[in-house]
C-alpha cells in the first residue's frame, strides 16, 4: 500500500498544490491558513511543462482545474492525452478519452489516491506542515514562495521539493515546481484564475 501511495504522490502533490488558495501577502503559514478559509471555489487554466535532461524539448500538457470547497476537484488535461481526474469527497476517479468517449481508468492503484485525500484536505485548510511535508516560507523574491520538503526519505528519493510560487493576485498561485532531482522537474503555470465563482456541480460528475 505504501508503494502505491508513493506512486501516486506525484499526482497528488500536483493536485494539492493547485488546489491551495492562500493570500499572496500573507506573512506566515498561520496567515495563509486563515486566508484559505475564505475560498469557496477556484477555476484556472494550466500549462504543465516537464523538463528532463534527455528531452529535446519540454513535454507540454495543457488543461484546466476546478475546485469547489470543501472537497470537489476536477483536474483536466486537454492535450496531449485527454484525461480527467475527479475527486468527490473521498472518492477519486480518472477518466481517459478513447474514441470520443471517456472510459474510467480501472488501474487498481487508483485506489491509492483516496489514501492521500486526508493529506489534501489538510492543505485545503492551509495546513502545510502535514505528516508528509515540512513547509517554509521564503518572502524574497516577492511576492514569496512556499517550499515543501518531504519528511520521509522514501518520498524524498523521488521528490526533492515542491515550490509554490505566490502570485500578486491574492488567493492564487502563479506556478508550482515539483523537483524530482537535478535533471528532472515539472512546472505548472496557472492562468486565467478566478475565485469564488459558482461552478456547475455537473463539472464534478463523470465526464461523458
Amino acid at each position, binding site marked *: 500500500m505504501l508503494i502505491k501511495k508513493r*506512486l501516486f504522490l506525484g499526482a497528488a502533490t500536483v493536485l494539492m498544490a493547485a488546489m491551495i488558495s492562500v493570500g499572496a501577502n500573507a506573512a506566515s503559514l498561520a496567515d495563509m491558513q486563515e486566508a484559505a478559509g475564505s475560498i469557496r471555489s477556484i477555476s484556472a487554466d494550466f500549462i504543465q511543462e516537464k523538463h528532463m535532461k*534527455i528531452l*529535446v524539448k519540454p*513535454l507540454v500538457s495543457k488543461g484546466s482545474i476546478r475546485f469547489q470547497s470543501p472537497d470537489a476537484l476536477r483536474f483536466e488535461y486537454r492535450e*496531449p492525452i485527454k484525461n480527467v481526474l475527479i475527486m468527490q469527497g473521498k472518492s477519486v476517479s480518472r477518466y481517459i478519452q478513447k474514441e470520443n468517449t471517456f472510459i474510467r481508468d*480501472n488501474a*487498481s492503484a487508483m485506489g491509492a489516491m483516496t489514501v492521500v485525500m486526508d493529506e489534501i484536505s489538510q492543505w485545503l485548510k492551509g495546513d502545510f506542515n502535514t505528516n508528509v511535508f515540512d513547509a517554509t516560507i521564503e518572502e524574497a523574491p516577492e511576492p514569496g514562495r512556499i517550499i515543501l520538503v518531504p519528511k520521509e526519505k522514501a518520498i524524498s528519493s*523521488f521528490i526533492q521539493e515542491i515550490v509554490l510560487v505566490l502570485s500578486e493576485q491574492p488567493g492564487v498561485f502563479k506556478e508550482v515546481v515539483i523537483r524530482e532531482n537535478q535533471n528532472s522537474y*515539472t512546472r505548472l503555470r496557472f492562468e486565467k484564475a478566478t475565485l469564488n465563482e459558482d461552478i456547475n456541480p455537473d463539472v464534478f460528475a463523470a465526464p461523458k
Partner: protein
Amino acid sequence: MRLKTALEYLFVFTFLISAGCAGLPPIVCPDNSAVLNKQSFSRELNTLFPTDSFQFVHAIELTMAGNHSAMLMGVVNIHPRHRAIHCVIMTLEGLVLFEADHTAEAFTIHRAIPPFDSQALARGLVSDIELIFFTPRGRLDAWGTLENKNTILRFSEPDGGTIDIVISPDRTIWTQNLRTGSHRIKRWVKYIFPKATTNRRSPVFPKSITLTAAFPSRYTLTMTLTDANLISNTQPLR
C-alpha cells in the same frame, strides 16, 4: 467498451496461440529476383526502422491479463547506429516511474519505482523497445508474398528464432512477428502508418504501435505517437 477491449485482447491471443501452433506461414510466391536486392530491402526497412537518432513521445496504454490497464507517457531516444536506447516512462502528471539506458556496453537503470523496479521487467521492456525500433539482428533468409498478398521479409535470428516483417499492399499496416526456434510466437508488433501524402520530404512514423507479448508474461502495449524529434547529438546520452 470494456467488453470490446476484452474481446480484442482475446482475439489477439487466440491469433497468437493459433499462429504459434501453425508454424511459419508459407511464402507462397518466393521472390528471388534481382530487383529486390539488398538496397531495396534497406529502403523497405528504413520505413519501419529510422536510421537517424530520434526522440519519440508516446501515450502508452499497458494492458495486462485480467483487463488491468494503465495509461502512461513514454519517451524513447533511439540511436540506431549504436543500437542504443534511453527510455523514460512517466505518469500522465509527469512523475518519472522508470528511466534506463541501454547500449552495447551497459544497461543502466537510473530510476525504477514499483512495479518497474523488477530487473526482469526492465530488461524485457528495453528488449521490446529494441524490437520495435531497430532492424533485426539476424540475416534475411527469405522474402516474397503471403497468401493474402502481403509482402513478407523473413529473418533468422542468432538465437534460432525468426522475425517476419509483413507489409500490407497499401503499406499502411506493417507487422513484425518474433518467433522462437520452435516457431512459438513470442511478440507481435503492429505498426499503423498514416495514409500516404504527397509530401514525403519529412520522415513518416507510425501513428500507433501495438506490441503484444505472448510469454513469459502476457501484456499489450498500445503506443500512440504524440511527438517525434530528430536528435542532433547522435551519441547516446549517458
